[in-house]
């Protein structure tokens, strides 16, 4: 047991922080701090800065830009990115599709996509969920029928984050029907500019655009865009979901949010002096900060335990996901409460065409973030799914006979 960061890890944290503060422009970090929706160009600019420093894809194989760092160092990096208000590398690119291509793709696919994915020259979105395939993902129906050199794709994806900004989509499609629904699923890369694709915004309660429906109407996709083998897509998706857990607990993000709660509460008048002096409010903040401190160590435990084992997801990752979401949600709940009556004039407005922030200012961003944050207990396996995993994989509780 060694419960302290070692010298190398401490120095690494300092290097990362210095790089981020020196190279990532202040206006981008300010917008992240205020939780405003970032313009596409800013996200691209920021990821390219990270990539230049070697910080965008350290978990990839070394020949494609990876760094062979320990999981603890990667965790430190993720924490520093979040707590210094730097936009995270686009997860669909760096955490999801990248590792799948690097592991199961052909040499040609790796050369074509990986450098572009790391540098955000190509923006990927994720086409997994469908109207009737959410937590039960294997029920997906979008079909891909082989016709010579192409697949003909028909169907619909839903909850596709940033589909309207994306250049490409990686999709799970059904290429055949097997005995089990997990069989016959394939992993396909599709250029969003292909005729027959339609993206429709799903208006959400937070007021800005991020999720979409994506319709495929006889979309012809070159067969060379199939990743790995036909029918093995389910395994690839399992692999993908098991990737990069080192920041699953969102510790840096929560730390930034709780810090902002403190700052807002210190600057806002309560009914008896500043809000931060209100003992009831202070107590809520104390609990959240304590919970976060525990989460920080839970995350380190999960990260450190996976370090030498390779392969296999620690089921305790589910704890990170649940508690991480919890703290993020309670932090933004406190921000909303600090706004108080100001929240009444901070609903979102219809964006004017040229507004980079889609009409969302620093106050309405809190209201938007409050609504948006409910997603943390839903996406990537809802909290109920995580409880199922814990009950079965950790506690060994059985299903009904």
């Amino acid at each position: 047991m060694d419960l302290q960061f070692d010298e190398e890890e401490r120095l690494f944290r300092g290097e990362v922080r210095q790089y981020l503060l020196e190279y990532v422009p202040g206006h981008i970090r300010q917008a992240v701090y205020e939780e405003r929706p970032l313009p596409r160009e800013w996200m691209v600019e920021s990821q390219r800065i990270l990539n230049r420093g070697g910080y965008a894809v350290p978990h990839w194989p070394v020949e494609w830009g990876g760094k062979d760092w320990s999981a603890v160092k990667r965790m430190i990096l993720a924490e520093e990115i979040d707590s210094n208000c730097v936009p995270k590398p686009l997860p669909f690119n760096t955490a999801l599709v990248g590792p799948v291509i690097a592991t199961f793709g052909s040499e040609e696919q790796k050369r074509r996509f990986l450098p572009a994915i790391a540098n955000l020259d190509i923006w990927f979105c994720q086409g997994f969920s469908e109207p009737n395939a959410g937590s039960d993902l294997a029920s997906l129906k979008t079909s891909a029928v082989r016709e010579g050199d192409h697949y003909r794709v028909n169907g619909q994806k839903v909850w596709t984050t940033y589909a309207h900004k994306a250049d490409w989509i990686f999709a799970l499609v059904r290429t055949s029907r097997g005995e089990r629904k997990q069989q016959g699923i394939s992993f396909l890369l599709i250029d969003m500019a292909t005729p027959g694709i339609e993206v429709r915004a799903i208006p959400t309660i937070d007021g800005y655009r991020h999720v979409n429906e994506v319709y495929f109407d006889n979309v012809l996709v070159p067969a060379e865009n199939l990743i790995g083998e036909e029918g093995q897509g389910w395994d690839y998706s399992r692999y993908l979901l098991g990737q990069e857990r080192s920041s699953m607990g969102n510790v840096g993000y929560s730390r930034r949010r709780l810090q902002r709660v403190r700052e807002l509460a210190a600057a806002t008048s309560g009914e008896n002096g500043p809000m931060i002096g209100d003992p009831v409010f202070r107590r809520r903040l104390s609990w959240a900060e304590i919970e976060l401190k525990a989460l920080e160590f839970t995350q380190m435990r999960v990260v450190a335990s996976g370090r030498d084992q390779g392969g296999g997801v620690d089921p305790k990752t589910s704890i990170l996901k649940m508690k991480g979401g919890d703290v993020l949600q309670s932090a933004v709940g406190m921000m909303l409460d600090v706004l108080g009556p100001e929240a009444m004039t901070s609903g979102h407005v219809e964006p004017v065409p040229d507004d980079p922030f889609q009409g969302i200012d620093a106050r309405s961003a809190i209201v938007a973030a409050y609504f948006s944050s409910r997603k943390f207990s839903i996406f990537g396996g809802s909290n109920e799914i995580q409880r199922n995993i814990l009950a079965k994989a950790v506690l060994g509780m059985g299903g009904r006979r």
Partner: protein
Amino acid sequence: MNFDLSEEQQMLAETATRLFDGHVRQAEPDAKAQWRDYQELGLIALSLPAALDGLGGGEEEIMLVMQAYGAACGTAPYLQSVLLSGRLLAEAGGENGERALSALLAGERQYALCLFEPDSRYRWDEPATRAEQIDNGWRLTGAKVAVCDAGADSWLICPAAVEGGLGLFLVPPGAAGVAREEGIAPDGRPSANIRFDGVMLADDAAIGDPAMNRARLARIVDQAIAACCAEAVGAMEKLLDITVDYMATREQFGTAIGTFQALQHRAADMLVEIEQARSITIYAISMMAAPEAERHVAVSAAKALVNRASRFVGCEAVQLHGGMGLTSEYPAGRFFQRLTTLENLFGDTHHHLCEVERGGGV
């Protein structure tokens, strides 16, 4: 960063588990024999400084021992005798301290630390109990409450305000002017309220340096709180095991109740709270060498979260057991009682949250 147990730590954990399990099964526990067991297995040396041939440091090892103790629902006064009194005597040093310590190590004496007072809840560092220097000795006056595991033959260690700081006084069993009101803690262990009405003590009853005793005792109490957290984590983990086992065997509506998703989710929530409690305990342990203010906030943060988890896990375990959870014969209830006692020991949730806030937050 590395959270894996070394081979030695692994062995220690297993040894401690066997020892405490054995002690719990004894029909008529013999405190002296148990003490010898501690000594033989090195558990006493473990928590005493290197100067006394202890292994020194060892906060991580103590955590492992206390987890094992918690999992066994141990009843021997390990915390009171070794972690509190033993450490205090060892660190107070001096002729008086050393003499008192050798009596402890030889198994001749048990000690109990009298920390808390009426009307000041969990604040112990500015006692109303006072000691005045008189010819050839001291006169001790005041009252202490909730003194755990103090048998009638135990020596008491009593902090008291003295000229120039905090005095620490050794009070022999049966001293004139000591009035004990015996009570029982929620887990059934002895706990006494004790009055000192002008108790006359010899010169050599005072240990340590009044200018340094407060800081020294503060550290030892923080270490003991972290140990309590570890005990609670061990107890909660075991209680969850017991509960999951019970759910796998108890059948209703033709199936084991552990197959019901609603109940599985409650068990999963218990697991989540336990793992968070374990994490913050590790955090507290990692802060033991930090300056007092930071160490104290870390320890209080840990105790607050572990307390909350203890109450949640204890109540849920009883609920998931149904009526069986309320019976004395079934182990779940005993763990719940011990967790409830631990929640109170060295400060309840409210106290420790206040401490965290007084220190500026974690």
